[in-house]
């Protein structure tokens, strides 16, 4: 078991990478913060002058902040692609509200008699702003900037979803891989950063008003310089760029396996699964790690590189159910097995394509499938209790969850309830283990490598065939976790390395070995 590594060892071993990601994290935070200050402070001053538009502007930046950050990231991809730019834009939007609001409040709170005095003794409007209003509003503005900085440190972790790096890489990889050390390697520095920035800006706030001018010049210059120095290396020397989602990036059978088996060595960025295909389609990425049954392979005109040295183990999909649920509802296993062997690779790809590319709803595709196979039945009473179905966050899982939901409703007295959006193997598995769901569809290879972590020798023995993997996970899940694997659905959703078809063809690459050779000769 690899879990025996302590947190301290992990930090020592990954020190360089943690530092690098911390620096990226700071870049993201500060570049966006500086842009926000440059935009938000004048905006705050402007709306303090024109009270009529204040409500509209504050409302607008307020609404920006209520949009979930991940949705905002996804929304920007078509316009800004992936990488640092959209991440900075999102962080910028989030930092606007506290700074605009505090600038507005700070300026409008300046004592009217002081302002009148300034006018009465002959200050011009700009002298009044620089000599009276800004100095007096400074502490309030500064606390807005402080809030924005802390928010940005938090939101910047999500930048890892769109290949912008930062401490989120460790956090999301850690969650995907069920590795607490890795999660903490991202979470602890992020928390420390937030605390340090909070205190740093609190210091600025407390600084006597006399030093404002010095601070207002020195800080941005320093930050810009720091940001510039660190920004420069980004995007340098990218021959071919690979984008991997967190799980692929860290799993033994993912990128680390490819490095070991093929000697593959390339520039990689971490990116969210949903953004990855867009990234390769836009030409921002050249290689991605995906799933062989993904409908988007077809939709985006990608080719799967042949795994000629067998790095990827089989990933046969099969339902995993709680044993104690099966004991109280034995009829369920039979119903689940109705689908055994019915969904082949091509069937699954076709269904994924319909949802991903033709934008049909998973429910529609599920019903169509059940009708074709004569398995569709009108829902029964639903009075026999609740059957909680879990699903990971990708298309295939949504469709499968819909199929099972309809199947259970039609063939048993149970009332199916689906929890979609359990983001990753670890979260799904824990939900099942903790009796928060009763069932979800897992893949044999994933169960083996992510949950069971067998030692090298067992792994070699088990990986010999698809059947031996299935048998091993079935046996171990039952004895270790009291969970039952029912019969496989029939498709193998294997990990796969893919490229854009025209690029692969022009380079003459059809296998992973060829890709590795191409990169080495470069």
């Amino acid at each position, binding site marked *: 078991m690899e879990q025996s590594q302590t947190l301290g060892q992990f930090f020592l071993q990954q020190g360089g990478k943690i530092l690098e990601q911390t620096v990226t994290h700071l870049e993201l935070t500060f570049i966006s913060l500086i842009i926000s200050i440059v935009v938000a402070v004048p905006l705050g001053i402007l709306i303090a002058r024109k009270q009529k538009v204040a409500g509209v502007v504050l409302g607008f930046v307020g609404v920006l902040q209520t949009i979930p950050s991940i949705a905002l990231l996804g929304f920007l991809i078509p316009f800004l692609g992936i990488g640092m730019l959209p991440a900075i834009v999102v962080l910028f939007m989030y930092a606007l509200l506290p700074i605009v609001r505090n600038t507005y409040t700070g300026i409008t709170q300046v*004592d009217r*008699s*002081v302002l*009148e*005095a*300034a*006018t*009465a*003794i*002959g*200050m*011009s409007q700009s*002298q009044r702003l620089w*000599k*009276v209003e800004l*100095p*007096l509003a400074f502490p309030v503005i500064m606390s807005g900037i402080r809030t924005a900085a802390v928010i940005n440190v938090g939101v910047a972790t999500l930048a890892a979803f769109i290949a912008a790096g930062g401490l989120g890489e460790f956090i999301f990889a850690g969650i995907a891989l069920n590795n607490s050390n890795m999660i903490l390697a991202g979470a602890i520095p992020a928390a420390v950063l937030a605390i340090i920035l909070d205190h740093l800006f609190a210091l600025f706030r407390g600084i006597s*008003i*006399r030093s404002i001018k010095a601070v207002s010049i020195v800080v941005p210059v320093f930050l810009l310089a720091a940001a510039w120095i660190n920004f420069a290396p980004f995007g340098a020397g990218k021959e071919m760029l690979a984008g991997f989602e967190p799980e692929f990036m860290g799993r033994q059978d993912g990128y680390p396996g490819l490095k070991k088996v093929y000697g593959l060595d390339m520039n990689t960025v971490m990116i969210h699964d949903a953004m990855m295909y867009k990234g390769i389609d836009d030409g921002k990425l050249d290689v991605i790690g995906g799933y062989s049954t993904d409908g988007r392979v077809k939709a985006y005109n990608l080719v799967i590189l042949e795994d000629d040295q067998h790095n990827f183990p089989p990933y046969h999909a099969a339902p995993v159910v709680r044993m104690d649920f099966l004991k109280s509802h034995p009829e369920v296993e039979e119903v689940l097995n109705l689908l055994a062997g019915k969904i082949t690779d091509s069937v699954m790809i076709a269904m994924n394509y319909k949802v991903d590319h033709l934008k049909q709803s998973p429910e529609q595709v599920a019903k169509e499938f059940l009708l074709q196979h004569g398995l569709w039945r009108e829902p029964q009473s639903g009075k026999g209790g609740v059957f909680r179905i879990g699903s990971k966050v990708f298309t295939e899982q949504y469709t499968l969850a819909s199929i099972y939901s309809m199947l259970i409703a039609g063939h048993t007295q149970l009332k199916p309830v689906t929890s979609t959006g359990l983001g990753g193997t670890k979260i799904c598995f824990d939900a099942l283990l903790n009796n928060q769901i009763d069932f979800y569809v897992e893949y044999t290879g994933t169960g083996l490598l992510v949950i069971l972590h067998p030692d090298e020798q067992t792994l070699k023995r088990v990986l010999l065939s698809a059947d031996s993997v299935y048998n091993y996970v079935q046996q171990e899940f039952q004895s270790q976790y009291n969970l039952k694997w029912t019969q496989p659905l029939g498709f193998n959703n294997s990990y796969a390395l893919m490229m854009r078809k025209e690029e692969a063809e022009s380079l003459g690459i059809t296998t992973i070995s060829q890709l590795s050779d191409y990169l080495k000769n470069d």
Partner: protein
Amino acid sequence: MSKSFKGKPVVSDVSFEVHQDETMVLLGTSGSGKTTTLKMINGLISPDQGRVFIDGKDALAQPPEMLRRQVGFVLQNMGLFPHYTVEENISVVPSLLKWDKKRINGRVRELMEKLQLPYHDYASVYPSHLSGGQQQRVGLARALAANPPVLLMDEPFSALDPITRKNIRREFRELDELRNKTIVMVTHDVQEAFDMADRICLMSEGKIIQSGSASEIVFRNQQGFVSQFLGDQQLILELKAVTINAYWDAIETVDQTTQSELKFNASQHLFDILQSLIDVPYQGEAFTIVHTSGEKKITSFSALMQAFRAFKSNYR
């Protein structure tokens, strides 16, 4: 000048002249338009109609900032800059006028000494650490710093407690810096107006009801409003309005046999003499009054009252 806010006239056809080195007080109740009138003089409020001439030149023709730097302004709520020290507050206008540092510092020291704020103790203190009276002195020093020929004061003492108010008022009156200034001051306090003014404009509902010297206002008020406004204070104001010198000739002398030791100066007001007589066992006997020229008269209180009454009726 005239000014309306939202169609409601606040100041209607107000016109007056203030002579060089004169202190003119705009006296009136709140809402009488006196503050609006004052603020139109330095362009803080722009008049709908009318013009302001300072030293014969159209004051509102120049950029308002330029005008305001040449006209001192003392505010009701002091309006000191809380983030500036006393020295910095006083230096603001000279700095705006780009005086050199040495000259500014010299001027600040001079003013602070004159206003009883020792430079070493107060120069680097922030306004929040000063008492109300001290703050008002800094406010005055700020207004005087660039030596403007004209000074505008908007209820300068109203934020102070009665005792401080009286002391500061006396201090200001005795300040040489204020003697050679043309001052327009706004107040609602009758005592203050009569104390400080060379001339008073009594205002009501945006109009000047009456203007003139203190004695002209008390003795010659043609309109019911003035008596009503002065109210209880009318008597005291009358007694204080003129010195005995003013009606010296009308004072009749009395028999010298019952003469007391009492002796008064004719430069005093009748009010002062009344006050002194209350404090001693006075039983109607004669006393001595000395005219500024040195001439003496033996007289009685009733004779004094008679002369005053005659003066009053003559004045009308």
